């Protein structure tokens, strides 16, 4: 179901335009950030268990921080996972279709995906802006200003949109094959 991008490149490798390369680099950077956040979440959780069980200390900040880290890792990791074709899909119908129809179906799915991601970006930005303007804080002891965790929504979906656009133009420019399926 998932396809490794490196296995499915067309035989004739066309050099990617500068803008696409920039977007790909941004997605890779987002992947690094996401992976680091998950790793930090591991360390913080282990630290939490240690101080709680060994020193019998209360753990005020750890749980909330870890939750926000995982949310941010998920949203900011979206463009990276798109780049490496990690978002699982049902490719049964595309596989059965002739190449030309498959090509148009790939264009359609990329555009409709970009549209819904743009909607999520727009309303995510609005949600973040309200949290900032109204100075919303979490209802915990830490009272975290919520615009900080909410910023992952516009950042993640914004970068995800760019990556989908990069995939769209890569398809149009015949740099990538539809659904990354090659000539299967």
């Amino acid at each position, binding site marked *: *179901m998932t396809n490794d991008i490196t296995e499915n490149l067309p035989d004739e490798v066309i050099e990617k335009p500068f803008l696409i390369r920039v977007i790909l680099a941004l997605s890779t950077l987002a*992947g690094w950030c*996401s*992976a680091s956040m*998950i*790793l930090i*979440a*591991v*360390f913080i*959780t*282990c630290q*939490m*268990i240690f101080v709680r*069980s060994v020193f019998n200390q209360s753990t005020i900040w750890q*749980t909330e921080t*870890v*939750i926000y880290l*995982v*949310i941010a*890792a*998920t*949203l900011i*990791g*979206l463009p*990276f*996972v*798109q780049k*490496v074709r*990690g*978002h*699982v*899909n*049902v*490719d*049964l*119908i*595309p596989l059965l279709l002739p190449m030309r129809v498959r090509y148009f*179906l*790939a264009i*359609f*799915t990329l555009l*409709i*995906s970009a549209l*819904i*991601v743009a*909607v*999520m970006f727009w*309303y*995510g930005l*609005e*949600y973040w802006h309200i949290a900032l303007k109204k100075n919303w804080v979490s209802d915990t002891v830490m009272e975290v200003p919520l615009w900080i*965790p*909410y910023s992952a*929504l516009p950042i993640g*979906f914004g970068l995800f949109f760019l990556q989908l656009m990069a995939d769209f133009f890569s398809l149009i420019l015949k740099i990538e094959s539809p*659904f990354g399926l090659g000539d299967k």
Partner: protein
Amino acid sequence: MDPLTLGALVGISTILVLFSGVSVGIGLLIVSAIFLMIFDGFGSLELMPELLFGKLDSFALLSIPMFIIMGASISSTKAGADLYEALERWLTRVPGGLVISNLGACAMFAAMSGSSPATCAAIGKMGIPEMLKRGYPPTIATGSIAAGGTLGILIPPSITMIVYGIATETSIGRLFLAGVMPGLLLVSLFMAWSIYATWKSGARKDLQQRVYSWKEKFEILPRVIPFLVIIAGVLYSMYGGIATPSETAAVGAMLCLVISIIVYKLLNPKDLWAILRDSTKESVMILFIIAAAGVFSYMLSSLFITQSIAEWISNLDINRWVLMGLINVFLLVAGFFLPPVAVILMVAPILLPVIVTAGFDPIWFAVILTINMEIGLISPPVGLNLYVINGIAPDIPLKTILIGSLPFVACMVIAIILISLFPGIATWLPEVLMGKAI
């Protein structure tokens, strides 16, 4: 519009959107957005990011990336090979010893990795060439590993069980325990079939057995100790009252990373990045589907679809076992096309009230559902494990792997029947160790 007709419309639209090749998470958002916009107005779209964020705002979800890191770090070491070799040396005299070692190694590896493809790949890389070399028929060599790999989603820690626990608000600790006995039952059925098939194929007399000295048998044991430490550490912290499943998962992830670095000398930053990259890719994919499914189930609920379908099924007035049979067929078909996580997230909110009203235990149902999803992993057209095996053993045609897997599908169906007849197989262990569910 009548909520039931609306429900049918949502169902058809979801199938159409998902089969177009769009990714599952995005597909769920698209369907949710369309129906919310049409029936609740354009303004309801602005709720979507809030709902998505809200679904992710849970400490329980932490266990998913943590258990994935655990599996990815173990898979990237020689751990699978060591485990395989140790079991092979000790079980060499058992009839069909090699295939038994492989299935045992699959079960043990599943207990550490929680992932089916990872289990398949780790044990299959060593196991399949060795079995072929020693004269086992290719159907048994590949089918046993494909089936053994599916244990990854049943034997704890299981990502599928975590997702079910989150979707239905069921105790993850109980779900993990519920998977143990059915997991052992499946391994036993797989082993029984493998021995019988090897014997029946006539290959038994030609099998080459290597005899190991006691020195060789004991020599390998220290290499298996890290596994036992991980399993013991995870079980102790989860059931010893030290930590929640999420916290346990973090401890497991840390232990596995440390063991990978210290014991297996995984010191190259590139290798460590590969572990993190693979874990991030899989975690983000699953967490995004969970978040999108949160928006999807909000849409179903706000349009009264969930409630209406549950009520409709409850009023059908059919025997509860017929109902369970129909649910199983539905899950089986869904599992042929969709990944387990997506199936659970989409159907659990609708099915759970029906299951509970019909008098079934939700913990027991989690096991039945998971075995159904396991069947999907070794059945076409998706059958992820078949492709993993095909990648490891490219010389064996996919058709042979598929034929080899079919008897194991039958074993899984037998397991479902046995667990339905004797629900205690799933519910006994959680009840003994954690008391009756309230």
